[in-house]
């Protein structure tokens, strides 16, 4: 496992998200109102997402298509769980854990 620098924290809007393209597919990287960062898969199946387009409040995001609420920390929702990815801030840079980013089997 290694941490990949994906950019400066201020490139993610406050209470917003950006997409990171990976071999696994798109990953949504979220920034909360208290400047925490979380990363999850951008979609769950064909029905939910792109979550990077949802509204972020506290530590959750609303699916822009279905309005289902996903917990950013656990990826859980009433309709199923998103794969989450390690993500943290170091010296103003956002680092993403690459251990689950290889192409899905």
């Amino acid at each position, binding site marked *: 496992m290694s941490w*990949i620098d*994906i*950019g400066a924290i201020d*490139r*993610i*809007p*406050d*209470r*917003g998200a*950006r*997409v*990171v*393209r*990976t*071999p696994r597919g*798109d990953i949504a*990287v979220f920034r909360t*109102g*208290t*400047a*925490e*960062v979380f990363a999850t898969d951008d*979609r769950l199946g064909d029905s939910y*997402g*792109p979550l990077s*387009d*949802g*509204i*972020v*409040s*506290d530590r959750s995001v*609303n699916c*822009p*298509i279905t*309005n289902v*609420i996903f917990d950013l920390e656990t990826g859980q929702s009433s309709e199923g769980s998103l794969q989450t990815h390690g993500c*943290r*801030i170091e010296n103003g840079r*956002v680092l*993403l854990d*690459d251990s689950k*980013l*290889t192409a899905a089997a």
Partner: protein
Amino acid sequence: MSKKLVVIGAGMASGRMLEHLFDADPAAYDVTLFNAEPRGNYNRLMLSPVLSGEKTYAEIVTHDDDWYAQNDVTCRFGERVVHIDRDRKVVVGEHGELPYDKLVLGMGSTPFMIPLPGHDLDGVIPYRDLEDTERMMGLGAKAGSKAVVIGGGLLGLEAAAGMAAQGVDVTVVHIMGHLMERQLDPAAGYLLRKALVDKGITVMCNANSKEILGEDGKVRALLLDDGTELPCDLLVMAVGIRPATALGEAAGLATGRGIHVDDQMITSDADILALGECVEHKGEVFGLVAPLYDQAKVLAQTLLDQEATFVNKEVSTKLKVTGCDLFSAGDFAEGDDREDIVFRDPARGVYKRLILKENRIIGAVMYGDTADGAWFYGMIKDGTDVSDMRDTLIFGPAYQGGTALDPMAAVAALPDDAEICGCNGVSKGDIVAAIHAGATSLAEIKATTKASASCGSCAGLVEQVLGVTMGDEFVIPQDESICGCCDLSHEDVRRLIKSQELKSQEAVWQELGWKTRNGCATCRPAINYYLLADWPVEYQDDPQSRFVNERKHANIQKDGTFSVVPRMWGGITTPDELRAIADAADKYNVPTVKVTGGQRIDLLGVKGEDLPAIWYDLNQAGMVSGHAYSKGLRTVKTCVGSDHCRFGTQDSTGLGIKLEKLLWGSWTPHKLKLGVSGCPRNCAEATCKDIGVICIDSGYEIHVAGAAGMEIKGTEVLCRVTTEEEAIEIITAMSQIYRENAKYLDRIFKWVDKVGLDWVKEQVVENLDERRALVERFNLSQSIYRKDPWAEHAKPEKAETYRPLADLTLEAAE
């Protein structure tokens, strides 16, 4: 013979160190004290009360001449130290040399002056010592004096409040979005700003200073980036301090941001020790007094060859401005795995927030009621596990039982002159008086005061006033609240945003008692809309409080792609526009091109990251956003009218284009669709629109409140007018009254059903003054919002946000 100790700097840290030293062993050292200021140790923290006139200088002196005499300290005050000669172990002062066995550096810090053009003018000062304080106090003696303070941190605000107390007209200019951003979160910053404004201080946040303007070598005004000029007789720069390291650096001591010291306060030279604001310990520099006192104790023990270790602990902050009660401690800004506990009491202007990590408090921000600050601070320092008291923790040590929050707190907090019924100008005091005179129900209040007798949207508030005034004798009918974040209905919130002049999200969260820190996906879009509709000039639209379509200015489709609809005014297009649309469809591989029900062309299946580019291309052909995604003006559908049609009675196409050019870009509670038909045959299907016009021989018949969605409803006639100008005026007023009053996500027909068409008619048709006022407010709002969002978002800095933050597919393939 005792050893020679030389101390440079008679500040609070070195003063405390000497106290410890003399307490433990008065004979250990023969002490000489240098100070550049012509006086000894005084309590610098108390300069603010001196400035505001609450204390005198004499009262804040820590060590007077007697104290130095009693302890046999040789004082060399007003004398600068020029050099330290470490080889000879000699300190070189302006008036001569002095040998030392041990040397203590306590030079403190120097204020940082922004090198703006004009920073060296007379009248531009820092806020650091007694001279600066006296300069500011002198200003208060002259009537009509003005001062500008650059810096909305602890020191700047104390300077501002102090001068304001002396009668000076003060403006604070702060570069960040809220005051004291290092100690406070935006919610507490909001309350602080409000308290300062109440003291008559002007506060400008997000303000960039550009230049200090002078006249005859003296400061005259501060010029901001946006061209604003703030006249002033004195300009105080309080933007931060820097450790005074020059002397140590010149002597060759290890120095970073400050002079490096170890846990025993020893510098890189074993005989030289340092403490206070001039040092750097494990990468940290210091500005608050608590850790400095710890350093003083450790340094004194080191001098006496006792073992001691300095540990930097969490510090807390309090602002010394009378009437601004705030407290902050620990870490409340960044990091993972944290939880918030928030408490707001709008009635008392109280805000408290605790930040928890793994069931321990790691940070606290409080405003208005800081009595429990020390208790929370203690738990932060001790790392107390709070799992067992989480539910009642926020209420403090005295309240470990907790009660439910009062849902009526926001209404109880309103002053008597707060307007409850906007239509009839009825205040809370009027309603309370009616209740004391015997009214016991909404109907009786309506009959006696006329409150809620017109549009009725304040009925919920009237009931809450009844509840607050009558207590248990009045049972409030359950009105649906916006969401779990608050207890008020949409109508109540709208009314209070207007009457309480709440102009920011923070103001709404605080004053209306929101239970969450930042709202949720349900309430935030509504509040964002209410604020921008009611305060178009003061409030700044928040894209992160909007659904994706309005944030990205395109309509999201179920596969995550977007649809793009350029505007065609009144449904009229040209061969050139059609060619540009066709080219764009080819260039961006648009899979589906469709004609919409609103007489536009829809390009479906555009990739999110292509949006800025396709907009740029359409802009180049003269087209702007069709807002086919917004809760705002969508389309004005027209028929060909009298230009071509043998039945047409008026120029319906022309009127449609005029209306669309007037109304486009405006945000409304829900989408707003219009139709203009040139004759009663109604080819533009105007009688199922939100607002419709049927042209007739004698003029124009204006319709409102149609629906053709999940519900189907024909319009109702609002009025008939003879001229096109009047038709446009009434439609503008109609749009504005809907914008100002309806609940978020109510179409016009739903809203009119609640308030009654008669009331709407009265406001926009019969009452000419009100009609014109509505038009004026609409035009004011449009001066800000009538612009093409596509053009804005096609610019490189915005376009960047539509692309991935990073692409890792290439790296991983290696």
